[in-house]
């Protein structure tokens, strides 16, 4: 029932958009805190979530990292497995100018809040999100505080 690391890397490795396929790296949990580091194209995050869901993973967190120098934003999906000691990180990069990404709230219901938070903090729009309202920030906030070029 519980997936092994090999099976998982194979499942994630099969993800492809036709032009770009997922890059799967096995990490040392003693140094990194996770076992598998998967980098996918932005259009593949939902499928990656599907792979994680079928393998019985639970959503840990969704968050962003603003790479100002590269003019990109990274969105990181953390998954943990409730029944076996496995952690997977799925990451993707989107352009800073057009931060848009499909939502995974349809796969993991818990992503709803995490994505709203990420929207608040980074201004990343999750297309297809059921309820992308201001969340932690005041409802009239027009800024995204975790952007590196944000000045309070």
């Amino acid at each position: 029932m519980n997936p092994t690391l090999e099976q998982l890397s194979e499942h994630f490795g099969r993800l492809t958009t036709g032009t770009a396929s997922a890059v799967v790296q096995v990490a040392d949990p003693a140094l990194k805190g996770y076992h598998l580091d998967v980098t996918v194209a932005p259009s593949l995050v939902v499928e990656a979530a599907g792979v994680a869901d079928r393998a019985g993973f639970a959503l840990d967190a969704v968050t962003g990292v603003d790479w100002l120098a590269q003019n990109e934003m990274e969105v990181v999906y953390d998954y943990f497995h409730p029944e076996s000691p496995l952690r997977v990180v799925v990451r993707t990069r989107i352009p800073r100018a057009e931060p848009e990404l499909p939502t995974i709230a349809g796969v993991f219901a818990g992503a709803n809040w995490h994505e709203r938070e990420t929207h608040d903090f980074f201004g990343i729009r999750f297309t297809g999100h059921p309820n992308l309202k201001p969340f932690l920030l005041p409802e009239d906030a027009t800024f995204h505080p975790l952007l590196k070029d944000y000045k309070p």
Partner: protein
Amino acid sequence: MIAQKDLIPVDNGGDPTKETFVLNLGPQHPAAHGVLRVLLTMDGEWIQRAEPVIGYIHRMHEKMGENRTWAKFLPNTSRIDYLSAMHYTHAFVGAVERAAKIEVPVRAEYARVITSELNRISSHMVWWGALLLDLGGFTPILYAFDDREKILDLLEALCGARLTYCYYRFGGLYNDVDDAFLKGTRDFVAHMKPRLKMYRELVTDNIILRKRLTGIGPLSADLCRRYGATGPVIRGAGVAYDVRRAEPYSVYPKLEFKIPTYPEADSMARYLVRMDEMEQSLFIIEQALDQIPTGPFIGKVPRVLKLPVGDTCYAVEAARGRFMVRIVSDGKEIPYRVKLRTPSFSNLSLYEEASKGMILPDALAMMGSLDLVIPDIDR
């Protein structure tokens, strides 16, 4: 945070028997532990939709992490969830230690385990008392606080603070555990065992409490998984998920303990899990007290701490569940990104789905059994 359209009751198609109304529970409601606001669409006493509205004490800890050095962020960690400050500091310290490959002396690790478990017990005591307050029982919280005071006194004598301990440092501890503390902890363990029996007789076996919690607010294992609910919530759903075992850290692999699980998945199951956890924590403390070696309490730490480029995760089992810190470093003295994944956030996110069709007092009992700390959600 709420648009006008959300305040309009669900359309009843002109049928008055289907009329609903909006009830604003909080942010200053007695059962809204802190400043949680729940926007309820009610049909009589039945909840049609419960939308938690959060952010009233949002402090942007993550941004604070980005403009101060690693060490300067330490005091923040004990303020995210003020009831399990030790665990949160542990996670942050652990993440930095993992990234910078700092060795922690064994004595420090044991001291961390002892203080963490004491903190877990004190946190569960607050939950226990607060749950009973939600259910209308006043006396248990004062009994719990009487015992909790003993823990706080111990920790205060050890690290100088009663709540925001900030006791761990990169590579060890702020100061050494002294003999008075070790002896005091031993006495506390002996004191606590009969008290737990008293808690059981007074509250757990009480028919009113059983009626109020049994079968109320079932949260299935799959629901917990989809929302990432952890800690006693998922263990109350019969899944033996405990970060102390799933991603072993500190000296937990050397210590024996059971992961209490109850398959019923209702509020009573979550209640019993926490009651059992208190017992297990006492058991862990006893072992750690027996095993704690002598030696240094802090390891070698570079004066100017610069972490290697890349990201590192570190998760701990906090009192409310899995707390994970994800740090991203760009090689400078200051973190590039600090992500705090807090358990209460995920545990509350399932509330909207789970409370559908429940009756108001039951929904509040379920909320009490989730053990929420609002600053932990808002960060």
